């Protein structure tokens, strides 16, 4: 005798609903970092996941806190220059310049044209170097290895140029209050020119690999979208802000160091997603190259430090060895520090990562009373708590890569 069992199949929708009940996703908490390859430094993320979806993400920072602001209160203005290298250590030259200009604003000294042009040039080279790394590792975060190799090769050439100019590849410490450490070496500008001519070829190769890549599209478009309002509210600056469609570039809008003389465009994104941030950075490299060409073509002659700032810029070695007065001057500046008048000044420079600000409070003398560093990476990371929820776990690497932050600057 056969036994018959009735089974109900039901409709498609009810079966799907049943399956949904069967696959129970579990909420779990996940700790990423502080040492993790995708976090670009010692960043720790405390996440809550529902299956593969992030429901909560809390960034924990401070693992690289060295107390730079406390240190600054205890040393002379020039002694602090090496510490600025270690803020955004992917663009130390730009930090050096931003710090020097902030203090010079307080001292109210005029910087000669040659020095200003040189500072613009090194800022733009630092931007190219930082963006080359930014794009390279961003590709790597999204799964593309090759572009990283291309961009790193070019970055290496830049570091050779930095070494020829400053004597160091990484920790440049190139500016002084009132000028720079030394003049441009002979033939250096020609080498920079050559580099600027050759770079577009590599950029094209990288673009061919990434910009119209289907997989890259899928990983980056519509991911990590920051609206205009959020970008403003969270104080995002630099490429992250411009990718969201806000046209704010301090080089154009609050020109410093003679940026107003140069002709360049400010790339602005439309959707504010990871892809837009990548495109804006790529385009910024081309614009930086344009500025570099213009600086080199009309590189001014004349003094390369503020000669009339007697109590601020220490005389060069040749002068010390021949003149008693200048020997004393040098001794005073080295021991007491550059004499900066009393006052408060806030200066922001458009650095590769965003607006790097220095709030300098002086009570007179050679040591700042208070020095606050406004780090763009700090602000870029603060949006993560709002940005990450709703994304998949794998997207977090892409989002972090696209925000292009540096922990040395975030934690100070």
């Amino acid at each position, binding site marked *: 005798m056969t036994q018959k069992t009735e089974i109900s199949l039901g409709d498609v929708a009810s079966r799907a609903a049943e399956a949904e009940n069967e696959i129970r996703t579990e909420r779990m908490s996940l700790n990423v970092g502080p040492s993790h390859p995708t976090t670009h430094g010692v960043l720790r993320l405390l996440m809550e996941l529902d299956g593969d979806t992030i429901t909560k993400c809390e960034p924990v920072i401070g693992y690289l806190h060295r107390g730079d602001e406390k240190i600054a209160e205890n040393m002379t203005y020039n002694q602090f220059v090496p510490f600025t290298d270690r803020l955004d250590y992917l663009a130390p030259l730009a930090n050096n310049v931003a710090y020097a200009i902030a203090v010079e604003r307080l001292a109210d000294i005029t910087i000669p044209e040659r020095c200003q042009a040189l500072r613009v040039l090194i800022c733009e080279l630092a931007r190219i170097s930082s963006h080359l790394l930014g794009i390279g590792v961003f590709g790597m975060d999204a799964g593309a290895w090759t572009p990283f190799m291309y961009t790193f090769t070019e970055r290496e050439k830049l570091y050779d140029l930095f070494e020829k100019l400053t004597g160091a590849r990484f920790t440049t410490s190139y500016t002084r209050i009132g000028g720079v450490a030394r003049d441009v070496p002979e033939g250096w500008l020609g080498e920079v020119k050559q580099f600027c001519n050759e770079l577009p070829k590599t950029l094209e190769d990288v673009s061919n690999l990434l910009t119209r890549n289907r997989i890259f599209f899928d990983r980056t478009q519509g991911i990590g979208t920051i609206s205009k309002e959020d970008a403003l509210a969270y104080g995002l600056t630099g490429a992250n802000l411009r990718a969201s469609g806000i046209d704010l570039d301090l080089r154009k809008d609050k020109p410093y160091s003679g940026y107003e003389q140069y002709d360049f465009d400010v790339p602005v994104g439309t959707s504010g997603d990871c892809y837009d941030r990548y495109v804006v950075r790529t385009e910024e490299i081309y614009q930086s190259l344009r500025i570099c060409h213009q600086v080199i073509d009309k590189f001014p002659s004349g003094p390369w430090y503020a000669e009339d700032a007697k109590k601020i810029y220490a005389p060069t070695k040749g002068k010390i060895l021949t003149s008693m007065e200048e020997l004393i001057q040098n001794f005073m500046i080295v021991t007491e520090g550059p004499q900066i008048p009393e006052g*408060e*000044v806030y200066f922001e420079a458009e650095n590769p990562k965003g607006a790097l600000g220095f709030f300098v409070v002086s009570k007179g003398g050679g040591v700042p009373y208070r020095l606050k560093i406004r780090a763009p990476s700090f602000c870029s990371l603060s949006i993560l708590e709002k940005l990450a929820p709703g994304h998949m776990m794998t997207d977090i690497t892409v989002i972090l890569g696209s925000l292009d932050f540096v922990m040395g600057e975030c934690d100070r």
Partner: protein
Amino acid sequence: MESIQDLLSNYEFLAERASADCPSVLCPAEKYLEFAADLRDKHGYDMLVDLTAIDWEHELPRFIVVAHLLSTTKHCYLRVSVNCEDDNSPEIPSLATLYPAADWHERECYDMFGIKFSGHPDLKRILMWEDYPYYPLRKEFPLAGIETPLPAADIADVTGVEAEPAPMMGGPFVAPPQGVVSESEPRAKDESWTEIDPKPTKRGTP
């Protein structure tokens, strides 16, 4: 661009502060939120770029909170300062509801100076760890630091291993320089100890 005179005449409670660059105003704490909301909504200061504090040490009032606002359309900065009335437990209203950017800046300010921001959604330390007992950017805090147990007490409870503070200087990975370490590092000099007469620690004499 609106001049500082317009602001001062429209808001009578404001006082002008000396500044070497952008306009700078001093706002009383009770009008702070109202004024900041006006700045954002009526005057176009749509971005809070920075918020910090200054410790004047011997001057009164001791703490002043300084915020920098930027108008992304008019491209001008404004410095808004607020004095903290109480020197022992400084407290001012939080801007975090107006400008989400203030959230982390205020946490840092609390972490470094011990200034409380009333109305902040989650005021806790940000750069130092939660149980850290000092406010490092206050002027009385020594540059050399103060030896503090690391936040491993919970782990120590489980493992039974004693959590020791990290050495202030030297340590197992640094070769001792010639002579006395505390003298070779003049900036980090902590007068309370030397190698010959060390601080009593759980580790015993180093």
